[in-house]
Each structure stands twice: as structure tokens, then as C-alpha cells.
């Protein structure tokens, strides 16, 4: 038994497990040929990507932003407007979307990151609603709630999108891992733990807060652009406070401040209710209830989320193995 537990101390074990999981995931579309399930997996994929990005801002840096859907929208409208009005390939729009996301993210960061905790949350909440109101009113440009149609797809099939997402998820996972384990990650944690103390050790908190926020906005925009290309349709309804809430739920439920947390969160928050739909047929209308209830339970009882729960479990197992 101890030999098996010993294996978990070696890094190479985790690498093998990771590669095995990736291979399994890549093979999923071959087995789940149902169009509905494929669509579900792609939807979960988008939630995971956005939650992974959001995790940096809320989990590591400690800033509870409720404006993620704004940057999702920035990327989405970049994709929609560039392809529809300029007739350009969606791939070009995809490359431009993180740039617009970064630019607007940086601009938003400048005033809003001066706020702390509760006021930051409320401020970004108000900002999201403001942007939503503007989007609805500028219907000549944005198509408002009725939306715009005919946005070209990056790749034709759902399966292809799924694989594109896997690539993006792996990239973001590794990018986040490198960032978090480097000096940047330690600076983010310092900001989260005591933002007033950090500058006394030479840390330029303002610069790192803004850069991190802008970076996260860039990738959120990228995800948004991909999402809109997948849907081939855009509407201001995609970018409401409700979407911010879903992203928040994925990150918090999965476990903020951990690398894998948002992935678990996305699977649970978006995936579980859908899968349970088959099991609890009539209960589908209670899906938002389910999501809300999990979020409340986690935030009050299990602040570490699912990942935090696993860590505790692992701790218990280790202690039990030592006996």
C-alpha cells in the first residue's frame, strides 16, 4: 500500500495520469456520437476555458470580478462584427479578439482595480449591467437582443470545435501553471493575502494587477470569439450578469486558487445538470436552482470547492496510510 502511495510523490506519475486523461478525453467524440452530447461537451468546454481564466483574477489575485461576461462579449462582438461587416475570415477575428480583450481589459482595470473586495464586486456588477444596457440600445451595430446571424464557423463540425477547445484548454492550463508557479504567481498571492504589505517589498502591485486583469480579459475574449463562431449567432442575451454568474459558479464550486478546480467546476456546474436531465426528466426546470444551491453550499460550507475537498481527502488518506 505504501508503495502505491509513494508513487504519488513522484512528479512523473502525475504526468502519466495527465497524458492518460488527455488521451481518454480526445477519444470521447468517437464514443459519444450523439449530437446532443457533443454539443454539451463543447458547451462545457467553453465554461471551463472561461473559468480557468477567471480563476486567476478571483482565486489567485483575490479580486471578485463580476464583469467576465463583458470581456466574453468583447471577443464575441469582435468575431461577429469583423466577419460580418468586413467579410474577413473568422481565424483573423480569432487572432484579433485577445487583442481587443486585452486593450479593453486594461482600460477597465485602471479605474476599477482601485476598489477593494465588496466595492470591486459591486462596481464590476454595475459595469456589466451598464455594458449590457448599452449593447441592447445600440441595436444598429450590435443587433441587440435579436442578434446577428450568419457568423462563419472556425471549423465546420462540433467535433472539430471540441478538439480546438482541448488544445486551448491544455494551452491555458499549462500557461496558468507556469505563471502561477513563477514569481508572478507569488506576487498574485501576495496581493490576495495583504495588498498593502506587498509594496514594502518592492512589489509594484498596480502593474501586476492591471496586467493580470488584462491578460485574463484577453483570453476570455478569445473564448468568447470562439463561442460566437460556434453558435454562428450573437445576441446581447449571451452577455448578461447571468453568464458572469455561471463562470463564477464554475470557478468557486470547482475550487478557486487551484489549477484543476475550474475544470471540475465546469463539469459539475454545467455538465452535471444536463446529464441528470436524462435521469430526472421532470427536474430539468429546476436546473438553475441546482446550480444556485451548489454555489451557496460551497461558498458557505466548503470554501475550497471540489478541489479543496479532494485535497482534504488526500490528506486523510495519507495520514491513514501512515498508520
Amino acid at each position: 500500500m505504501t508503495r502505491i502511495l509513494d508513487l504519488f510523490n513522484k512528479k512523473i506519475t502525475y504526468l502519466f495520469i495527465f497524458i492518460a486523461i488527455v488521451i481518454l478525453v480526445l477519444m470521447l467524440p468517437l464514443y459519444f456520437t450523439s449530437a446532443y452530447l457533443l454539443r454539451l461537451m463543447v458547451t462545457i468546454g467553453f465554461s471551463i476555458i472561461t473559468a480557468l481564466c477567471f480563476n486567476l483574477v478571483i482565486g489567485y489575485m483575490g479580486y471578485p470580478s463580476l464583469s467576465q461576461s463583458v470581456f466574453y462579449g468583447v471577443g464575441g462582438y469582435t468575431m461577429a462584427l469583423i466577419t460580418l461587416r468586413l467579410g474577413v475570415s473568422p481565424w483573423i477575428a480569432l487572432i484579433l479578439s485577445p487583442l481587443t480583450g486585452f486593450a479593453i481589459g486594461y482600460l477597465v482595470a485602471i479605474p476599477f482595480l482601485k476598489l477593494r473586495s465588496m466595492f470591486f464586486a459591486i462596481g464590476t456588477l454595475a459595469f456589466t449591467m451598464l455594458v449590457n444596457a448599452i449593447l441592447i440600445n445600440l441595436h444598429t451595430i450590435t443587433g441587440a437582443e435579436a442578434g446577428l446571424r450568419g457568423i462563419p464557423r472556425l471549423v465546420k463540425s462540433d467535433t472539430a470545435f471540441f478538439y480546438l477547445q482541448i488544445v486551448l484548454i491544455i494551452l491555458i492550463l499549462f500557461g496558468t501553471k507556469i505563471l502561477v508557479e513563477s514569481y508572478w504567481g507569488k506576487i498574485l498571492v501576495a496581493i490576495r493575502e495583504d495588498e498593502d504589505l506587498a509594496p514594502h517589498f518592492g512589489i509594484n502591485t498596480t502593474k501586476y494587477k492591471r496586467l493580470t486583469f488584462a491578460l485574463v480579459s484577453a483570453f476570455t475574449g478569445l473564448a468568447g470569439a470562439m463561442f460566437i463562431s460556434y453558435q454562428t449567432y450573437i445576441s446581447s442575451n449571451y452577455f448578461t450578469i447571468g453568464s458572469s454568474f455561471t463562470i463564477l459558479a464554475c470557478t468557486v464550486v470547482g475550487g478557486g486558487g487551484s489549477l484543476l478546480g475550474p475544470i471540475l467546476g465546469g463539469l459539475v456546474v454545467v455538465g452535471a445538470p444536463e446529464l441528470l436531465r436524462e435521469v430526472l426528466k421532470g427536474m430539468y426546470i429546476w436546473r438553475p436552482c441546482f446550480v444556485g444551491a451548489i454555489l451557496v453550499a460551497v461558498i458557505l460550507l466548503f470554501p475550497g470547492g471540489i478541489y479543496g475537498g479532494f485535497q482534504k481527502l488526500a490528506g486523510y488518506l495519507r495520514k491513514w496510510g501512515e498508520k
Partner: protein
Amino acid sequence: MIFQVILNALVQTAIYLIISLGLTLIFGVMKIPNLTHGAMYALGAFIHYSLIEFLGLPFVPALFIAALAAFGGGSVLERVFFRGTGDSPVVAIICGIGLSTILINVITNIWGAWPLRIQTPFSYVLKIGGSAISLHNVVIIIVSISIAILLYAFLKWTKFGCAVRGVSQDQEAASLIGVNVNTVGMITFSLGTMLASIGGMFTAPITAASPGMGASAEIMGFAIIILGGMGSLGGAIVGAFLLGFVDTFVTTYISGGYGGAVAFVFMIIVILLKPSGLFGKKGRQI
């Protein structure tokens, strides 16, 4: 013509006042923003509707019963979910969002997503000069003024009101002199929730009751109390007037959709420049 707009603005202000008084009360005492305010605003309207439709109760008695139900609901919310979150308002915010989602989902599943028409017994329309105002709207104005006066009297002259003010100033000091902070919190939260539900019950006959009706009410409520100072009753009154008039005038003269947007702009400007609001102090007292 402008007099008509002013009348409309007064009604809007009155509704906003009922909502924001409850919100600022909760924030002043419990130090948390209550994100279930909008959901309870909606729930109040729907319970009221059911009491009228299915139990055949008249408007006013049904209102009292529904308000009491909201009071009870608020107590449950406080006791089970919000107690102790005063130290981390972000937890309270996330919790509030989750609960709000649950409540709105429940409303949608029980009463349906289509807007419900609710009849008001005060349908007589008064004519003043060239303008018209329905009796229902006059009642709203009277009710909101009464609530403001009652609240003021309650806080200033009753023993419990003093306890509320004490807790909002310094929770620890209040508990040291024997105030039961938990009870004060629960009653305040219930009171605020009840006010929200009353707001919803009076608004429903005007705009029809739909599950999402609380969202814009709640966010306007936050805009008002942030402007006026979170925790300040006088600030809520000033803020309600300010935003009530701005909202009505912008909606009438500029464009329908931008009324709310202007409120958000105000709110963001205030949050960025002086988060404690026009009348708020750093101690966030009532």
C-alpha cells in the same frame, strides 16, 4: 406636460424609496449588500397575486399577509445563510447571487415566466391641471412617505430602534452593553426584505409581475444607496429622489432604454470617486 413628468418622477421616486430604505437598513446593520432583495421583491408580488386570485382576498389584506410572509422569509434567509457573513461581504454577495437564482427559478416554476396582470382596487384616475395620476400611484407615494416616517420614528424613539442604530455603529460595543446582535440582525434583515416585497406588490399592478422583475429594481436600489451612502437613511431619500427624477426624465425625453444606463453611470462614478457616497461616513452608520 412637464408637470405630468414630475408626477411620474414622484411615483418612481416613491417606489425606489421603498426598495432602497430596506436595502440601506440591511447594509447599515449587517454590513453586507443583500442580493436577494430583488428576488424577494418579485416573490412578494407573486404571493400577493396568489392570495388575491386563489383565496379571493382583497388587495390590502392580501398585502399585509404577503408582507408578513416576506418578513418570515427574510428571517429564514438571515438565520440560515447570511448570519456571520458580515466579515466577508464577498461571500455574502456570492451567496446572495446563488439564493437569488434559486428563488427566481422557484418563482418561474410555480407561477410561470409570463407576466401576470394584477388588478389594483385604486384604479380611479385623478386629474390635476392638465396631468393625470392614478389613485394607485397616489397610494404608493403616501405609503412610501409613511414608511420613511415610521422607520425614522422607529429608529429614533423606540428601544429596539436604538439597538439597531447601536449595532450599525459598532457591533462589538453594542454586544458588550447587552444588545443581542443576532436578533437585531435578523429583525433588520426581515424588515428590509418585507419592505422589498411591499415595493414589488405595489409595482406589479403597474408593470405586471414577472420572475425577473426584481433585477432592475435591486440594481437601482444599489445605485441609490451607493449614491446616498450605504447605511444612511437620509442618503437613501436623497438618492431615491435623484435617481427617480433622472430615470424618469431620461426615459421620457431621451430614450426608453437609457434610463437604467444613466443610473449605472452615476453608480460607477460614485463608487470610483467616493465609495461611501454623498452622505455615508466611513463607519457606515444609520
